[in-house]
């Protein structure tokens, strides 16, 4: 396969001004990923700071209630900062320091990646600026304040639809202006090469651990692994170590918003077409002229019109399956997991929980299913209350 490509997907579709920066980044990454000291420091941070390995929790009540396969939750919500985003951020921020950068910038949707980036910057002593769509700063006001507490500057993006896509646009524009001292900590398995590969590698610890943990618990591989997909970093992270195990079904849950027939969704594989945007060839929600379409989801983290190129490839070759899950289904799964297991998960992750509620009863009791609980749901409580029409006097 050509460098930086997953089949025909991926690539480096980015302004010339950034090309040498991407080439330097690729070289630095190729060097440090094999560097013993770098890996020791990163492992220590993941263990002692982020709290890894994350638990693989057997959800006994959920299993019993659904009456099918045993359900395990990969608890990325228990990581420091409350989501899987810290895995990638620690890796990239360490790398940025090795490259001599003194400043990081990052986009954020729900705020989880922004909080993780601000955290790593505080820990490692780098300047940090976050770009967040104005609409998301309102949906996730608490996270804005968290980032500021951590010493980051939060730029509210008012262009376009004022959500994640526009935050990525603005962060790229900032990076084109100032790359000499600044690294762009991209938050998902997307963008130009080497980001999709590098972010996947940093996130693949999720799947490495899950594999060991499930083999220890069950003595066999799971029947299925289910994760939510926006750009797709938690999904790619947990899928990656299982790709060769074709008996393991890999399922990505896309945000169907108000329903895929309404046009108000972010179901990229289900409804999108191939295209080139944000540095990569992949699938995108777009109109009949190739203009990127406005997308919608209750979940700010899945509210993105594209998907990482490796997911496009896994879809293309039929190795992974991508299914739409609506706001209503996700909110109901959010409430279900809270009541059944006492776990308030991110509304993003609730998309995966919802699909497993449908899948599990039809899978044999001897089998298991792993859900990647990519993040915790504290940030979503107010939005869920609003969705249900509950006034909580915010």
């Amino acid at each position, binding site marked *: 396969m050509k460098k930086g490509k997953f089949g025909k997907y991926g*690539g*480096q*579709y*980015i*302004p*010339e*001004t*950034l*090309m*040498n*920066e991407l080439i330097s980044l690729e070289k630095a990454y190729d060097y440090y990923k094999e560097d013993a000291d770098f890996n020791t420091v990163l492992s220590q941070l993941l263990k002692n700071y982020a709290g890894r390995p994350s638990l693989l929790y057997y959800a006994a009540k959920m299993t019993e209630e659904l009456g099918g396969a045993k359900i395990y939750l990969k608890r990325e919500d228990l990581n420091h900062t409350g989501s899987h985003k810290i895995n990638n951020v620690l890796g990239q921020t360490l790398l940025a320091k090795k490259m001599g950068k003194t400043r990081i910038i990052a986009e954020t949707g729900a705020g989880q990646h922004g909080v993780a980036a601000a955290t790593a910057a505080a820990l490692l002593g780098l300047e940090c600026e976050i770009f967040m769509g104005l609409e998301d700063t309102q949906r996730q006001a608490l996270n804005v304040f968290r980032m500021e507490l951590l010493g980051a500057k939060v730029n509210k993006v008012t*262009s*376009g639809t004022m959500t994640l*896509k*526009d935050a990525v*646009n603005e962060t*790229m*524009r900032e990076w*084109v*202006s*100032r*790359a000499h001292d600044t690294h762009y900590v991209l938050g998902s398995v997307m963008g130009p090469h080497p980001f999709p590969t590098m972010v996947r590698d940093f996130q693949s610890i999720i799947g490495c651990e899950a594999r060991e943990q499930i083999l220890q618990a069950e003595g066999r591989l799971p029947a299925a692994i289910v994760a939510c997909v926006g750009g797709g970093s938690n999904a790619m992270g947990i899928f990656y170590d299982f790709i060769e195990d074709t008996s393991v079904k890999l399922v990505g849950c896309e945000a169907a918003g108000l329903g895929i027939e309404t046009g108000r969704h972010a179901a990229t594989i289900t409804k999108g*077409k*191939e*295209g*080139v*945007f*944000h*540095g990569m*060839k992949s699938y*995108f929600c*777009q109109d009949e*002229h*190739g*203009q*990127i379409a406005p997308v919608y989801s209750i979940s700010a983290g899945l509210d993105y019109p594209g998907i990482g190129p490796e997911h496009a490839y896994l879809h293309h070759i039929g190795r992974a399956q991508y299914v739409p899950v609506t706001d209503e289904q996700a909110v109901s799964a959010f409430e279900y997991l809270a009541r059944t297991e006492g776990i308030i998960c991110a509304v993003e992750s609730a998309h995966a929980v919802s699909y497993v509620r449908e899948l599990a009863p039809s899978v044999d009791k001897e089998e298991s299913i792993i859900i990647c609980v990519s993040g915790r749901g504290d940030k979503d409580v107010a939005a869920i209350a609003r969705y249900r029409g509950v006034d909580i006097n915010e």
Partner: protein
Amino acid sequence: MSNIKHCFANGKAFIGFLTGGDPSLEKSEEFILEMVRGGADLVEIGVPFSDPIAEGPVIQAANIRALDAGSSVDKLFQLVRKVRRQTTVPIVFLTYLNPVYHYGYEEFFKTCRLAEVDGIIIPDLPYEEQGEVRPSALANEIDLISLVAPTSEDRIKEIAINASGFLYVVSSLGVTGVRKEITTDLPSLLQAVKAVSDIPAAVGFGINTPEQAAYISRLADGIIVGSAIVKIIEKHGNKAGRYLYEYVKNMKEAL
């Protein structure tokens, strides 16, 4: 010699940019002709895109105005056909890759040829990725115009040697937009280009005033002005024609 190279044959070239369909297709037609009357040697028509990541606020806003007014790739082909009845000035499209990918490369470049578009600039298609577009561009004799930036360094050689039409030299880091000062070492950048290729080199990004134009035209074969023109259109709307004529005339005289 392609039509584009002709525009560099007589002195320094002035290249004017506008976003196609801002504020309307009819007005774009008039504005292009006014720029040509004012002395523009080549006209760049921006194909509006929902997410123009290389553009600053001025051209971003023009993209939104043009899309809201119903501009599209097909309508811009019609615009070029109309302009072609009135002038032989070289015309190039500036477009992000997705609308072209969506149109289909072969179909897009064939239509360019039929409409007599001379070249295409794709800011999110660096040299390494040009391979998928190049065969269709070549087959239809459309110049695929490459960019070099102040950060290109060792990449300049390969890009310049393989360039067609002209070379778009990006004057500054960052996105498009009017700049008071251009801080890049342009003499060195252009020297690096000229050392490896005799392709005409035009400098763009940030150029606004006749003084800047005069300075850069001593170093390069032409200048590209975008945001300053789009600002005039933003300010004067439907009445921008005569202001564009005067602006271009002043700038051309400064070269």
